[in-house]
C-alpha cells in the first residue's frame, strides 16, 4: 500500500505528462491509482498538471474510496481553471450524493461546495437539499457547512432555495455535531448579511447551551462564539447564562476557554451583584493562568487577550503577577507581552518584587527586551507615586552599569518622571550629567537636553553642557535641534548673562538661516520675535508650568476596549484593533443599507454625506456640483497674498491679521470614514487632527477632523497652507464649531489651486498650520497625492491616445518598477477609474499583461500610463508619458498608494 509516498515525486526523463496520461488510462486499477497519486504529487510541488483534467476525471467513477478522494482533491484544485471540463464531473457528483455509503454522500457534497464554478453550483442545489435532510448525521453536518460555502458563492441562490430555513431547522437536530456546524454556518452567513437571519432568542439560547455539554471541543467554540452576541434581558438571565458557561473554563482546549471567558465577560456587564462578579473574577483567574503553560504561540494569544481583560477587570489577576515573570527561555514575543502585563498589574503591594524582576531583565542579552524593561521601570514610577523613589534608585543603579543603551533608555524615562513629579527628584541630575558623552541616540539626547534646559538654574555649568552640544548643531537630527533651541532659550531666560546671550544668537542664527526644516525655523522665529519684543511675555510662554503627564499603561479607549473584548480569541484581540481596521473584504449589502439610513441629499444638515460615497450635493452649502471654482470662491475672502516672505508668515499667525485666516462661527459636519491622523494628540496637547485631500465633483476639498482630547473646549480654529507645488490654498472659511473636550468635529474645506505656488522641484509635501484660541499654532505635514487632482475629462479615445503617445518625445517618458506591489486581480485595476485614471486598452506581452490608462491634470496636462505586470505575482512596472515629466515622481508615489489598497 502506501507509506513511502515520496517515490511519487520522482520523475523520469522522458515527457512526464504523456507518461502519466498513459498510466491514467491503464486498465489496471492499481496502476491508475498510482498514476493519480503521481499527479497529486506533481500538483503539490507546483507543477501544472491541469492538462490531465479529462484523464483524471475519468478515474472518478470508482468504487474505491481512496481513489475517489484523490480525484476529488484534484478537482478542487483545477476545476476553476477548467470550468468547461469540470461539468464532466457533475454526473458523478450527483450520483455519489445518493450513494448508500454516507461517507461517499458527504464527500460528494463537501467537494462540490469547494468547487467554485457557476455551472457546478447550479447542480449542487438538489443534492444539498437532500443531504440537509439525510438520515445520517455525518452527512447532515457536512451539508450544514456546505450551505455557508454556497452562500459565499451565491447568496441569492441560498435565500431563494430556502436553505436558510433548513439550516435553522438543524439547530434543533438531535445530533450535537450537526447543531454545532449549523450554528457556525448561520453565524457566518449573518456576519456577511444585513438582514436578520440568525437571531438568537432565549429559546435558541437555552437549546444551544444544552447542546454545549455534548458536542466536540470545536463545536463548543462555534456555539460559544455565536452566543456571545446574545444580549441578556436582565441581570438574572445573565447570571443564569454565566452559570451554565463557567464549567467550560475547565476545558483542555484553549479556544473553548477563551470563548467561554469572552461570553462571561459580556454577561458580567449586566450583572449588578458585586458578590457574583467577585466570584466570577475568582473563577476566571486560574484558567487564564493555565493558558500560560501552553505552547508559546498560544501563550502569546492568551497574553494579548489578558492585556485587554486586565484593563477592564483588573481584579481578576491582581494577585497573580508572579506568573507573568519572564522565564529565561521564553520567546521574545512572550517576554514583551508579559512585561506589558506586569506594568499593568504593578501595585504598591508588589512593586518591590516587580522592580527586582525588571532589574534582572535589564541585564539580559536581547537589546529590545532590555530597553523595554528599563522603560517599564519608568512607567511604574509614573503610575505609582509612592514607589517612584524606589524606581528611580533602580534606574540609577542601572545607569551605573554603564551599558550604553541602558543608560540612554534610563535618561528618556527619567525625563518623563521629572514631568510627572516636578521639583521632587532633581537631586539626581548630577549623576545623569556624568553620562552625557555616551549619548548617541536622538531621543536620549533630546531628553537630556530638555532636562538641562528645564533645570538650568540648578545646574551650575548648564551653559557649558549645552555649549558642548551646540558645536554639532547643524548635524543633529531635527528632534535634538528643536530641544537644543528651546533649552538655550530657557537657559537665557533663566540666566540672562553674556554667555547664554552669545549662545542664543548662534542658535537662532543656525535655526533660521542655516536650516531648511520649517518646524525648526518657525519655532526659532517665534522665539526670536518674543525675545525681541517682550522678554517678560517670553518668560510666561517658555517657562510656563507644564501640564502634569499621566500614566499611559491603560491606554485603550473604553469604547474600543468594549469592542475588542467582544472579539476575544480572534485576530482583533491580538492586534488590538477593531476588525474593520484589517479585514479588507467589503460587505456589499452593508453599504446599501447605510445609504438607506442617510437619505439622498441629506439637505437638512447639509453635510450628512461622507466623502466615500458622497457624489452629489450637500457637501458644502456653497458648492453646487458643476461650477466648483466660482462657487467656492464666493464666501472666501481674498486668497493669501502669494510669495509672502517667511517672517510675514510668522506675523500672520501671531498677529492674526491676514485675510486668509478666517474666523469660524458656523457648525459643521460630523460622520464619515476615518481620516489619516496628521497631528497626533500627543504632539497637539490633546488636540488630534486628521485630514486628507479629496475630490468631489471636480472640486477639491480638504477634509479635516478635529478631536479634542484635552481638558478645555477649543474654538476659533484657523488654517493656513504654506506654498506648495500645486498652489493649494483655502477657498473658504474653516468652519469648525467649538469642540468640547472628548468630542470631535469634522469639516470639508473647499480648496483652490494655483494660488500659492512654490518654486523648486515638485513635491507632494503640503505644509499646514492650524491654530485655535486656546493653544499654540500647530504645524503639520500632509501629502497631496497627485490623483486627487485628476479631472473628469481625462478619458482619451484609443486613437487620440496613440497619437499623443507618438507626438511626445521619448525624453518625456519616465518609468519605474514597483517590485513589491502585487496586482491581485484585474479588479484592482477596475478601481483606478474611480480615481480618474481611465482604462484605454489591454494587451498580452509574453506572459505579462500590459494595461494602458490615461488621466489629466487641471490646465490640461495629460498623463499616458502603461502598466506591465503578471496578475497575481509581485512586481509592477509603470511607464508614463506626459508633457510635464517633472511630475513623474509624484505620479508614481500616488500610483503606489492606489495599487497598495
Amino acid at each position, binding site marked *: 500500500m502506501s507509506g513511502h509516498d515520496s517515490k511519487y515525486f520522482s520523475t523520469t526523463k522522458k515527457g512526464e505528462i504523456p507518461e502519466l496520461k498513459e498510466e491514467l488510462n491503464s486498465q489496471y486499477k492499481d496502476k491508475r491509482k498510482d498514476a493519480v497519486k503521481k499527479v497529486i504529487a506533481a500538483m503539490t510541488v507546483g507543477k501544472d498538471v491541469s492538462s490531465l483534467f479529462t484523464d483524471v476525471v475519468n478515474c472518478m467513477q470508482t468504487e474505491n474510496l*481512496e481513489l475517489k478522494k484523490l480525484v476529488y482533491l484534484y478537482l478542487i484544485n483545477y476545476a476553476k481553471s477548467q470550468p468547461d471540463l469540470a461539468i464532466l464531473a457533475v454526473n458523478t457528483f450527483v450520483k455519489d450524493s445518493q450513494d448508500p455509503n454516507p461517507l461517499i454522500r458527504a464527500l460528494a457534497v463537501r467537494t462540490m461546495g469547494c468547487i467554485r464554478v457557476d455551472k457546478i453550483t447550479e447542480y449542487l442545489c438538489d443534492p444539498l437539499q437532500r443531504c440537509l435532510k439525510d438520515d445520517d448525521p455525518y452527512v447532515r453536518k457536512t451539508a450544514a457547512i456546505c450551505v455557508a460555502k454556497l452562500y459565499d458563492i451565491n447568496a441569492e441562490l441560498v435565500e431563494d432555495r430556502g436553505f436558510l430555513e433548513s439550516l435553522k431547522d438543524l439547530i434543533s437536530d438531535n445530533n450535537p*455535531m*450537526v447543531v454545532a456546524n449549523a450554528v457556525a454556518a448561520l453565524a457566518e452567513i449573518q456576519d456577511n448579511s444585513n438582514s436578520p437571519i440568525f437571531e438568537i432568542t432565549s429559546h435558541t439560547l437555552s437549546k444551544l447551551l444544552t447542546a454545549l455539554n455534548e458536542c466536540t471541543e470545536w463545536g463548543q467554540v462555534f456555539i460559544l462564539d455565536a452566543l456571545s452576541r446574545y444580549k441578556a434581558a436582565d441581570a438574572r438571565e445573565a447570571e443564569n447564562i454565566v452559570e451554565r458557561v463557567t464549567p467550560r473554563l*475547565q476545558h483542555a482546549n484553549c479556544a473553548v476557554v477563551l470563548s467561554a471567558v469572552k461570553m462571561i465577560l459580556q454577561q458580567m456587564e449586566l450583572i449588578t451583584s458585586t458578590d457574583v462578579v467577585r466570584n466570577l473574577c475568582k473563577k476566571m483567574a486560574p484558567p487564564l493562568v493555565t493558558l500560560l503553560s501552553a505552547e508559546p504561540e498560544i501563550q502569546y494569544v492568551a497574553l494579548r487577550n489578558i492585556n485587554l481583560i486586565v484593563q477592564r477587570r483588573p481584579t481578576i489577576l491582581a494577585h497573580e503577577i508572579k506568573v507573568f515573570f519572564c522565564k529565561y527561555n521564553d*520567546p521574545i514575543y512572550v517576554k514583551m507581552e508579559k512585561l506589558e502585563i506586569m506594568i499593568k498589574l504593578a501595585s504598591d503591594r508588589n512593586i518591590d518584587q516587580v522592580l527586582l524582576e525588571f532589574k534582572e531583565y535589564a541585564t539580559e542579552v536581547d537589546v529590545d527586551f532590555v530597553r523595554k524593561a528599563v522603560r517599564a521601570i519608568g512607567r511604574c514610577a509614573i503610575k505609582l507615586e509612592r514607589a517612584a523613589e524606589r524606581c528611580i534608585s533602580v534606574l540609577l543603579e542601572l545607569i551605573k552599569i554603564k551599558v550604553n543603551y541602558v543608560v540612554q533608555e534610563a535618561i528618556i524615562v527619567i525625563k518623563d518622571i521629572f514631568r510627572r513629579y516636578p521639583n521632587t527628584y532633581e537631586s539626581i541630575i548630577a549623576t545623569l550629567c556624568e553620562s552625557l558623552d555616551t549619548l548617541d541616540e536622538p531621543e536620549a539626547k533630546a531628553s537630556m537636553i530638555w532636562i538641562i534646559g528645564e533645570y538650568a538654574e540648578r545646574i551650575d555649568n548648564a551653559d557649558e553642557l549645552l555649549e558642548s552640544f551646540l558645536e554639532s548643531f547643524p548635524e543633529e537630527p531635527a528632534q535634538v535641534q528643536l530641544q537644543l533651541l528651546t533649552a538655550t532659550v530657557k537657559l537665557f531666560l533663566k540666566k540672562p548673562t553674556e554667555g547664554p546671550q552669545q549662545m542664543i544668537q548662534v542658535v537662532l542664527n543656525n535655526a533660521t538661516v542655516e536650516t531648511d526644516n520649517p518646524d525648526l525655523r518657525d519655532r526659532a522665529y517665534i522665539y526670536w520675535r518674543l525675545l525681541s519684543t517682550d522678554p517678560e511675555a517670553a518668560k510666561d510662554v517658555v517657562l510656563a508650568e507644564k501640564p502634569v503627564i499621566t500614566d499611559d499603561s491603560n491606554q485603550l479607549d473604553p469604547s474600543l476596549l468594549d469592542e475588542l473584548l467582544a472579539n476575544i480569541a480572534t*485576530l482583533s484581540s491580538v492586534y488590538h484593533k477593531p476588525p474593520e481596521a484589517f479585514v479588507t473584504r467589503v460587505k456589499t449589502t452593508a453599504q446599501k443599507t447605510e445609504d438607506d439610513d442617510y437619505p439622498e441629499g441629506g439637505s437638512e444638515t447639509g453635510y450628512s454625506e461622507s466623502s466615500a460615497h458622497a457624489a452629489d450635493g450637500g457637501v458644502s452649502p456653497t458648492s453646487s456640483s458643476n461650477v466648483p471654482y466660482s462657487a467656492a470662491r464666493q464666501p472666501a475672502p481674498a486668497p493669501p497674498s502669494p510669495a509672502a516672505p517667511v517672517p510675514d508668515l510668522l506675523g500672520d499667525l501671531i498677529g492674526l491679521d491676514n485675510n486668509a485666516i478666517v474666523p469660524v462661527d458656523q457648525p459643521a459636519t460630523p460622520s464619515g470614514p476615518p481620516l489619516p491622523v496628521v497631528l497626533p494628540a500627543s504632539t497637539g496637547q490633546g488636540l488630534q487632527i486628521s485630514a486628507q485631500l479629496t475630490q468631489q465633483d471636480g472640486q477639491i476639498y480638504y477634509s479635516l477632523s478635529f478631536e479634542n482630547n484635552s481638558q478645555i473646549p477649543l474654538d476659533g480654529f484657523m488654517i493656513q497652507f504654506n506654498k506648495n507645488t500645486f498652489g493649494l490654498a483655502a477657498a473658504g472659511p474653516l468652519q469648525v464649531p467649538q469642540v468640547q473636550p472628548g468630542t470631535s468635529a469634522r469639516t470639508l474645506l473647499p480648496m483652490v489651486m494655483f494660488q500659492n505656488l512654490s518654486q523648486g522641484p515638485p513635491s507632494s509635501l503640503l505644509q499646514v498650520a492650524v491654530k485655535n484660541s486656546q493653544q499654540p499654532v500647530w504645524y503639520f505635514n500632509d501629502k497631496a497625492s497627485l490623483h486627487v487632482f485628476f479631472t473628469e475629462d481625462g478619458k482619451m479615445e484609443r486613437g487620440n491616445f496613440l497619437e499623443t503617445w507618438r507626438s511626445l518625445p521619448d525624453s518625456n517618458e519616465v518609468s519605474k518598477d514597483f517590485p513589491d506591489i502585487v496586482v491581485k486581480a484585474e479588479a484592482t485595476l477596475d478601481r483606478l477609474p474611480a480615481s480618474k485614471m481611465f482604462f484605454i486598452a489591454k494587451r498580452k506581452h509574453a506572459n505579462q499583461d500590459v494595461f494602458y490608462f490615461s488621466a489629466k491634470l487641471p490646465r490640461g496636462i495629460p498623463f499616458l500610463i502603461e502598466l506591465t505586470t503578471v496578475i497575481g505575482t509581485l512586481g509592477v512596472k509603470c511607464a508614463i508619458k506626459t508633457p510635464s515629466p517633472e511630475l513623474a515622481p509624484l505620479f508614481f508615489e500616488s500610483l503606489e498608494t492606489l495599487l497598495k489598497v
Partner: protein
Amino acid sequence: MPVAASAIYFLNLRGDVLINRLYRDDVGGNMVDAFRVHIMQTKELGTCPVRQIGGCSFFYMRISNVYIVIVVSSNANVACAFKFVVEAVALFKSYFGGAFDEDAIRNNFVLIYELLDEIMDFGYPQNLSPEILKLYITQEGVRSPFSSKPTDKPVPNATLQVTGAVGWRREGLVYKKNEVFLDIVESVNLLMSSKGSVLRCDVTGKILMKCFLSGMPDLKLGLNDKIGLEKESQLKSRPTKSGKTIELDDVTFHQCVNLTRFNSEKTVSFVPPDGEFELMKYRITEGVNLPFRVLPTIKELGRTRMEVNVKVKSVFGAKMFALGVVIKIPVPKQTAKTSFQVTSGRAKYNASIDCLVWKIRKFPGQTEPTMSAEVELISTMAEKKSWTRPPIQMEFQVPMFTASGLRVRFLKVWEKSGYNTVEWVRYITKAGSYEIRC
C-alpha cells in the same frame, strides 16, 4: 467568527511548500510567497507568531524542521487556529508513529491530504480524534499503530460514531484482560534568586491514561485534592479522613470528562477513549515540595579566572532516587580551560552552549554532592560588556515522587458486563523550567 483558517501550508526551512490546502477562496494561492519574502527571509522570523501582510494575516508555528502556516483574511479565531495546528500535528504523529518532520510529510502526503480534508471543512475544525478518524481514513501512516485493522472496508456505523455524543470512543471493543494504566507526570517550574529565595514556583501536572477496556465503561477518578474531598464528605456526611490534602489551582480536562458534573459534584467521571490519552492537566502553586536545592557560589577572580562551586541537595525520601540529573552552569564565552572536582557524577565544559555540564545518572535522596570548578578565561579587548550571568538550569526525573503531593485515591470502573479491571498507577516528577539565578 470561529473560522480558524482560509488556507494551511506546510513549509520546510527553506520555504518550499511541502503540502498545502486551501479551504476558502478569500486568500490567493500565492500568499505564501509573501510569507516567505516578508517573514522567513528576514529577521522578523521568531519575533511574533501572528503577522499581517497586505490584506492577509499569517499564524505560524515551527515544529521540528517544518513551518506550519495558516493564512486568513477575516477576523479569525486565532486561539482556535493554533490549537487546531497543535492537535493536527498530534494526529499526524499518531499516524506516522512518532516523528513529524519534512521527510514524514513527504512520505505521507496522500494521507495528509485525506486527513486535512476530513479534519477541517471550509475553515471550521471538525473531529480530530485519532480514535475515530482511523475508522474511515483509508490511508495508513508509515508505522501506523492501527495497521492490523482492515482499512479498505469502512466500518458500517463509522459516521454515527464520528458525530455521536461519545465522539471519542467506538463501540464493540473487546479485551481479554481489562487494564488501565495511569501515569501522573509532574513538571516543576522554579525560578530562584541568587540569594536562595523562591521567586516563582509552580507544578504543572498531567494524568496520562492508557485504557484497554471492553465495552462502554464509566470511570470515576478520586484524588486527594481538597475540594473533591470536602465535597465527598459533605455528600456522605462524614468527616474527611486525616492525611495530606492538596489544593489544585486549576484543572482542565479531556473532552470526555463531564464538566457540568465536575462543576456540581466535583467528581471526575468519564467514558474514556480507547488507548492512550491525556485525561487531565492541573496546576499547583501552594505547598510545592522542591526535589532539589541548588546552592551556587561563583567568584570572578580578576579578569581571567573564575571559581565555581555548586552544591545540590536532594530533599526527597532517602529510599528514592532521581534519574538523569543534569545541571548546566553558564560560563562566559571566552572560557579557555576548565578543571573539575566532583563528589558524584561527571562534569565537563560544553563550548557550544557555553556551560559547565554536570551529569549525575542516579541521584539518591537526602544527599548533597558538590562540584567545584576552576575556569580560565582568555582576556580579550573586544569583550567590554560585562557578562550577564544567565541562570543555572537543571534537568531531572524523580520516579514515584510528586512535587505536589498528589495521590490517586481510587479509580472505579463500571461496565454493564461487570468485568474486573487491573489498575496500574505510576508517579514521576520532572524538571520543567528549573532555573536558579546566580
